[in-house]
């Protein structure tokens, strides 16, 4: 019944999945107490979402949407406004043009590619932050965030894939 109502308005929910899951990733990154063992940093969930969907469904997560979600992340985390937006847009641009290298390959290749993206994004964030604050920002928390982001990527992507499959089935 619900599905019928969606269709009547011409909305197909599974097409909104990449953007919705990326928004969820942004919100998740500011939820308190999630990782009490590592209070300093939360994994960069939005980076995982943008990387994953830039490979599989770049047309459903266009650059302006990535930019807007990056701004929301900046607004919520209190980081310099535009910092994550810039990094996410560049990652989206690079990955969506190189997606053929990952399509149809094993997950290990995708994860290996993500290692490069995580290192690059982390380093870029740190450099921009140093320039922005005009100070040598402690690199340890950001390095920790990069490692954490890389480590939890498989779990997060598994959840993304399950949600996407479930929505497609009901659509």
């Amino acid at each position, binding site marked *: 019944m619900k599905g019928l109502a969606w269709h009547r308005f011409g909305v197909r929910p599974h097409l909104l999945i990449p953007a919705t899951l990326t928004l969820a990733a942004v919100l998740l990154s500011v939820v308190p107490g999630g990782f009490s063992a590592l209070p300093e940093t939360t994994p960069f969930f939005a980076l995982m979402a943008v990387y994953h969907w830039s490979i599989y469904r770049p047309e459903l997560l266009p*650059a302006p949407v990535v930019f807007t979600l990056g701004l929301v992340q900046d607004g919520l*985390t209190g980081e310099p406004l535009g910092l994550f937006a*810039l990094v996410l847009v560049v990652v989206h641009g690079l990955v969506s043009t190189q997606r053929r290298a990952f399509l149809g390959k094993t997950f290990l290749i995708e994860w290996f590619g993500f290692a490069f993206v995580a290192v690059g994004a982390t380093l870029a964030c740190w450099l921009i932050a140093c320039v922005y604050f005009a100070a040598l920002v402690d690199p340890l928390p950001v390095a920790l965030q990069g490692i954490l982001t890389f480590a939890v990527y498989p779990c997060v992507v598994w959840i993304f894939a399950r949600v996407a499959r479930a929505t497609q089935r009901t659509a």
Partner: protein
Amino acid sequence: MRQRGGETRRDAISIRVMVQRLALLLLAGAAVTLMLLDKSDTRVVERFRAAVLDTASPVLEVLSQPAIAISRVVEEVKFLAYLHEQNARLREENARLMHWRATALRLRQQHAGLAALLDARADPSSTFVSARVIGDSGGPFVRTVLLNAGRRDGVVGGQAAINGNGLVGRVAEVGLRSSRILLITDLNSRIPIVVEPSRDRGVLEGDNSNVLTIGYLPAGARTSPGDRIVTSGHGGVFPAELPVGVVTSVEGGVVHVQPFVQFHRLDYVRVVKHPFDRPPSREPAAGRGRAPR
């Protein structure tokens, strides 16, 4: 014919790639412009941040509840593991505190007597707004938390935020129903303080780590590990004598301070409403604060 079709398709693809690149450049440029605007403290950026906070706060309020519940369960399990040891420690501490209580009561009486004798003017008392922490910056470059109280509850930018242990930070951004607290550990945090025993004044500086340093101490200031640090109240923004932390080490003139607050365990904080703050335009119960839900 087929060749021309292929060319057209190739043209279309190259146009699409060009448009994508242009969009990427424009968006990257927009992001850099926003960063520059943010750096210059523009009101538009401030309003945008407040709007994002207010929009997301109902969602965060819901999301933060299970997250806090889970971390509480983890804490409980940890406590259970050390229950016996902790019990012994608390008994010992209790005996010590009973002694301190007797001393405090005696000193309070003495203080009241002396103040009456000198006709001293007491500090105007402060009122509080209690609020729940609904978001954590989680980012690597800033140390902030989000609260579910904002302008309508009487929160004003610059106010001090405390919990049962001591000073948490100050209000940095205020939305209608949410606000952001810049923790004292943040890189941009500067708090005027007093070293308690010597009454030397200084500025407590954060650097994103959990240990703070004191700058601008007068030459020849005598600070030693174990000294308590409290707010000085200078500048009129913060009330005086809010407990902040304790000196852990003094190395080569650099004074390190361990804050009293455990920042990863924040769930409720109180925003101190300075008596000189303007009262909020609405809300008849202003001053009594918002009951934590």
